[in-house]
């Protein structure tokens, strides 16, 4: 059912390599493949920096007033900012210096919070990652398992139910689901805390700290997880269907292999699109986790961005944008590489 979208959304790089395979079936070594992929990610990185640079310069008012916002920095800070932006130099020169400073890891300075942007972001990374990864791992596994069960019983009640759930998970705005779940499970039933990552009244250590965080984690992770579940179920179901109709499955059946082994055969090939699709949905998922963090007061990057937005802290907002973009580029790169390990065909050139 989703075959169409899977094919149209195959990662650009991957497809190009596959297409070329017919012309010249010489195989690339793994190292060269990885190097090629890393090289092709560099223009993306440059593109993101260009977008940011253009935004700073297109914004109403001059770049300095945009970056400073409503704060009143000291004369020294202003002088330093003028010097760093190099507004008296040519635009090309300004751009080169901007690229240089980002490559050195300098994402700017937040005049609102009086701190280094990169440091502010890095402080929040553990919270965001712990939320995202927990939810990602748990609900991806659940989604794929559900798809495998369903693939053996097409058009059954569980198949229809799963599909309906997937459509809802795919269509529901993450922040609204967060509000409703908060309303029901935290405010009405009082099973879970409403806000934050830890109980601020106590300082737990060791195991108690872990269970406290876990207690706070369950609701936001479930909200986020609905999306992982939906996406993975959708694509894994379509992929399993596809894989189960292949000739080698017919052959395996003819050989009289037990059904479990047959499903495992199909699974190994059916899982591939799931990896790709995940890469393409990383950006959506990040947006969802930002919004979820805000509803649950989770002290991650999303919350940081929300506060930055209200304080008109543009250096921080732009820093987060660059940081997240780089994160996505790297994730996609890793996915390409993982994919090539699973399916050596894409390494053909």
């Amino acid at each position, binding site marked *: *059912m*989703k*075959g*169409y*979208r899977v*094919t*149209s959304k195959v990662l*650009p790089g991957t497809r190009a390599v596959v297409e070329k395979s017919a012309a010249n079936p010489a195989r690339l070594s793994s190292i060269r493949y990885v190097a090629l992929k890393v090289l092709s990610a560099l*223009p*993306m990185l440059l*593109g*993101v920096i260009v*977008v940011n640079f253009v*935004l700073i310069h297109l*914004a*109403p008012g001059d770049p300095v007033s*945009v970056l400073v916002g409503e704060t009143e920095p000291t004369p020294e800070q202003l002088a330093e900012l003028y010097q760093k932006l190099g507004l008296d130099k040519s635009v090309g020169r300004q751009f080169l210096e901007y690229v240089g400073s980002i490559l050195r890891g300098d994402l700017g300075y937040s005049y609102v919070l009086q701190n280094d942007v990169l440091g502010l972001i890095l402080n929040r990374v553990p919270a965001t990652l712990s939320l995202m990864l927990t939810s990602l791992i748990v609900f991806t596994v659940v989604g794929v398992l559900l798809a495998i069960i369903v693939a053996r019983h097409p058009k059954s009640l569980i198949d229809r139910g799963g599909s309906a759930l997937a*459509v*809802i998970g*795919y*269509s*529901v*705005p*993450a*922040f*609204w*689901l967060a*509000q*409703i779940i*908060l*309303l029901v499970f935290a*405010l009405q039933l009082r099973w879970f805390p409403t806000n934050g990552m830890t109980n601020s009244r106590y300082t737990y250590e060791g195991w108690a700290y872990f269970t406290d965080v876990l207690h706070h984690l369950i609701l936001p992770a479930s909200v986020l997880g609905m999306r992982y579940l939906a996406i993975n179920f959708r694509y894994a179901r*379509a992929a399993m*269907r*596809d894989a189960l*109709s292949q000739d080698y499955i017919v052959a395996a059946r003819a050989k009289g292999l037990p059904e479990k082994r047959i499903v495992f055969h199909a699974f190994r090939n059916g899982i591939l699109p799931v990896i790709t699709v995940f890469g*393409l949905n990383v*950006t*959506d998922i*990040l*947006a969802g986790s*930002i*919004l979820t963090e*805000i*509803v649950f007061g989770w002290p991650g990057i999303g919350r940081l*961005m*929300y506060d930055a*937005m*209200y304080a*008109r802290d*543009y250096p921080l*907002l*732009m820093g*987060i*944008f660059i940081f*997240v*973009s780089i994160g*996505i*580029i790297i994730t*996609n790169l890793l996915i390409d590489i993982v994919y090539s390990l699973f399916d050596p065909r894409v390494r053909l050139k």
Partner: protein
Amino acid sequence: MSMQDTPPLKSRFAVLYGNLLRYPARLRLDPVSGAALFTLVAMLLFAFITPLFFENVNAMGHESFAPPGPQHPMGTDDLGRDVFARFAYGARSSLSVGILAAFTSSIIGISLGAVAGFSQGVVDIVLMRISELFQVIPRFFLALLVIAIFGSHLIFIILTIGLLGWPEVARITRAEFLTLREREYVMAAHAVGQSTRSIIFGEILPNAMPPLIVAMTMQVSSAILLEAGLSFLGLGDPSNPSWGLMLNEAQQFLTRAWWMAVFPGLGILLTVAALNIFGDHLTDVLNPRLRGGR
């Protein structure tokens, strides 16, 4: 010559696109997709007719936080405003943003994709590189940044969402053009000396429409979600209540007035789910060869 036999361009347009208009008969609706289509039509009618009956959506009433009842079917909010009236207005702005943003991204995407797929060469490479960049850029973050910097006017929100959505349409258009331009009927059109423009719009584009229609429904649903997310963060146009903006207002009164949060969210969920279900159904009907064994 045979040139005389081909009907004038205009009527051929009518024939080709008329076929598209005849799709309703070929939609092969099942109960689920039928319900989805019905929901969409009902929501559209509701969104553009109901607001006409409410003169002032910001009219404050005497009673704040009134629960849903006969007077106020969806209750009232913190300022005593009728949630149902705001819901109706919200439907109008959310759907308008969704449709207009999808329209923007479709026009840009189809034009650029057509040029890339038809001409190939350097233009193609450059355009596809740019669209790859847009695929990895976190759309939501960029929209947020742009609107935070330039202000949250409705037109601006529509344009921003539209400008962020074109690469997907462009990729699909390009892929269709790449295969369709090699077909015999296109060669025939070249041979009888049709102009490039009439080949693109009269021969190739109508045949590329099926996947594009699906892509457009998906553009509408993702635009509605994106707008809702932005408005929820307080970046919506404050003079036009949208569903996302209502959810933003509801956040601080979650304990006191659940109805402020439940109804606008249901509106988004219903609309987006209906669009997604209908889009999936269209994929099945319009691209039977890609039906993954349903």
